[in-house]
């Protein structure tokens, strides 16, 4: 089967889980014999990817995608310079995400003049316009894969109406929708009035590279944390972009509560984002700056060290369609505390759950885990059985079944 995948990022040029999920899904599909052309909006080397063709929709450096912010829909209305044609040499602040999307659509249109894939699989609103174009103008079956909706990104707010429009059109015109969790499926149903039977849940799995690569803790990089752990401190971490969606201010308030009962807690905030300054300030306001450590953006080895050293991993998201980092943390033996609003909580039952606004409950859970070795050990060993329950091969099988159905329908 020939598949045109429409994506926005692939590792190592990714800013979050979207690129990781796309890579793993494509790899598993390719293993089953799918021929995939994968479009990204930038030009970069992807040497390690040999199971599919990575096509560049523009000559932009991947940094432009970061600059344009795959996740930051609020930057959408950033300046648009009428004559900028996104050619080879143009500086990032001159390119808006809308321009990149336009170039992306043009590229897909040209591609489809020449090639005829069996179906188009588009990932998130960023590529939905190109997917709709394939469906409308070329009659190619469309799968819209939702890793996050604008409602998730807006963290309880309404979000950007233009993004809603693009999202809605993609979802309406798609032959089938993939949602990364039941939570996301219901958001799509409730917010966009899409019938439930048009939406299939396709969970993510753990990054294969993550499993394959040999790993050992680099003690040097976290010497200080090691020493604190030896003194009986419990290390509680969170990893991700610091945005309102992640519910980190609630987490800090809960941390302050927990610290009143037990001062041997260290909180590690790994990541970066527009909320960072606010968080640093809040930690000081709450008088707990001493126990809250900000690492800045971490990836690769350092990220794994964070998981490895942590005793407890917290996903405090107000709305988290899936939450890949929780699987990664589980792989490294962390005890998990997840908000009920996180998709991954549907898969990982051996974890503590709380509502994102319930600071008190989170504080209690942290204290309970920190105080009880028995509880820690039980949760750790039980989650081991769970976190690999869904493999990417399984995910691919689910997709293939749907592919076959809609291709058959289109031909018949």
């Amino acid at each position: 089967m020939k598949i045109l995948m429409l994506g926005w990022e692939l590792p190592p040029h990714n800013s979050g889980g979207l690129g990781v999920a796309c890579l793993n899904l494509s790899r598993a599909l390719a293993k089953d014999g799918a021929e995939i052309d994968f479009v990204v909006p930038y030009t970069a080397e992807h040497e390690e990817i040999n199971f599919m063709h990575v096509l560049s929709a523009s000559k932009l450096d991947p940094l432009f995608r970061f600059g344009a912010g795959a996740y930051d829909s609020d930057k959408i209305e950033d300046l648009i310079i009428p004559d900028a044609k996104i050619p080879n040499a143009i500086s990032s602040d001159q390119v808006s995400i809308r321009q990149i999307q336009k170039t992306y659509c043009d590229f897909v249109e040209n591609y489809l003049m020449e090639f005829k894939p069996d179906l188009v699989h588009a990932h998130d609103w960023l590529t939905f316009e190109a997917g709709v174009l394939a469906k409308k103008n070329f009659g190619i079956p469309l799968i819209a894969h939702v890793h996050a909706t604008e409602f998730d990104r807006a963290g309880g707010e309404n979000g950007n109406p233009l993004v809603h429009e693009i999202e809605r059109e993609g979802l309406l015109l798609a032959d089938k929708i993939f949602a990364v969790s039941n939570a996301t499926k219901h958001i799509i149903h409730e917010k966009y009035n899409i019938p439930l039977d048009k939406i299939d849940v396709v969970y993510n799995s753990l990054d294969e590279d993550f499993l394959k690569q040999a790993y050992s803790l680099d003690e040097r990089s976290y010497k200080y944390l090691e020493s604190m752990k030896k003194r009986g401190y419990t290390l509680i971490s969170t990893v991700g972009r610091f945005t309102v969606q992640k519910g980190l201010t609630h987490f800090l308030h809960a941390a302050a509560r927990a610290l009143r009962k037990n001062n041997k807690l260290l909180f590690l905030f790994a990541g970066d984002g527009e909320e960072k300054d606010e968080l640093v300030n809040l930690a000081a306001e709450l008088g707990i700056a001493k126990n809250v450590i900000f690492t800045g953006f971490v990836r690769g080895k350092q990220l794994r060290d964070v998981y490895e050293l942590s005793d407890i991993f917290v996903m405090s998201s107000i709305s988290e369609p899936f939450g890949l980092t929780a699987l990664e943390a589980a792989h490294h033996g962390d005890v998990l505390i997840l908000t009920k609003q996180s998709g991954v909580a549907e898969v990982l039952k051996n974890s503590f759950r709380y509502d994102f606004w319930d600071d008190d409950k989170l504080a209690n859970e942290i204290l309970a885990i920190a105080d009880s070795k028995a509880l820690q050990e039980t949760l750790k060993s039980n989650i081991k059985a769970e976190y690999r329950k869904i493999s990417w091969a399984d995910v691919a099988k689910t997709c293939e079944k749907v592919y076959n159905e809609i291709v058959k329908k289109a031909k018949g």
Partner: protein
Amino acid sequence: MRGICLYLHIHQPWRFRAYSIFDVGNSDNYFLDGNYHSKQNNERIFRKVAEKSYLPTFTLLEKNLKRHEGFKFSLSVTGVWLEQAELWMPELIERLKKMVKTGRVELVAETYYHSMSFFYDREEFEEQVRKQITTFERIFNVTPKVFRNTELAYNDEVGATVEKLGFNACLAEGWDKVLGWRSPNFVYQAAGTKNLKLLLKNYRLSDDIAFRFSNKEWKDWPLTVEKYETWLGGACLDGNVINLFIDFETFGEHQWAETGIFEFMDRLIESWLAKFDNKFLTVSEEAASPPVGELSYPWTVTWADTERDLSAWMGNKLQDEAMRELYALKKEILKAASVGKDKNLLEDFRRLTTSDHAYYMCTKYWNDGDVHAYFSAYDSPYDAFMYFQNILRSLQYRLGL
């Protein structure tokens, strides 16, 4: 007699580098950034400021000392500035020595580390003042008799304390709310002291040069020597000595050479001395005159911002927390130092007391992108706080706490 007391202040902090949590336990180097072009590279900043300000201003001052017997000024140079000059441009210290040797350049004491230690830890404050005195004695062979606290932060308690340390006079901001109807152009006796003189900055005339000189929005722009002299003359009707207390970097760095600031000073000195009865005085000469009355500073006044208070250093939770944690470590650090453990700990600690570090964490004008942002070596006050916290963790780690 009509006198000008010109006092200049030179300082550069040891900015801490972007010290990450990954450095804790691996590197005790907080102040030397390996990347010459980083925002926190002290050597780069020092050389840049030297180029724009120190070198041309030294030349201007030397020239005028040579040309006019009557030209005098006073100067404070922080210990941490001297350390950096010694490392990167020792010729600056040689030139300073020569100027001091003329007997017409008086050195003013302060805390060696340019700290706000007075408000956190009196013993530490006195220690830092003593270190500054011995440094002056060692390098310049003079013992300072006049004191200025960091940022001119003054209250009655500061006065009482520095008198006990042996000083004859102290500098302070001549702030209207304290002075009321009185003029800053006289010498006062500090309330609560036996005989400490207060020398008060005439902030209007000082800031005309320091802040407004090149401001084209200012109604009196451009400032000519003639115009300025009529203002000085007016002020002299209301006292005998006008205290122009100015940050050294005003010349060339805050007011660029292109604004004509150097020519202005050059001509001002010449023109002022050309008139009968006009003089320049050093701080001690001024302090020798009898006080016209007593003056009390019941609350702390600084020379900073429109508030003239400590809020730029002690105004938010970030600053409170960072400084509280820092000073809380002192006891352990002294203990470690007394048994000869980790010789650099005490020095590192003291460099962290430099007030600039707290200033970088100031958020009150952050959004205006004004002077606070301009002088920050960090992307945001929050970044500064984050790195500082990591350094505190490193100190604790080194102490085995």
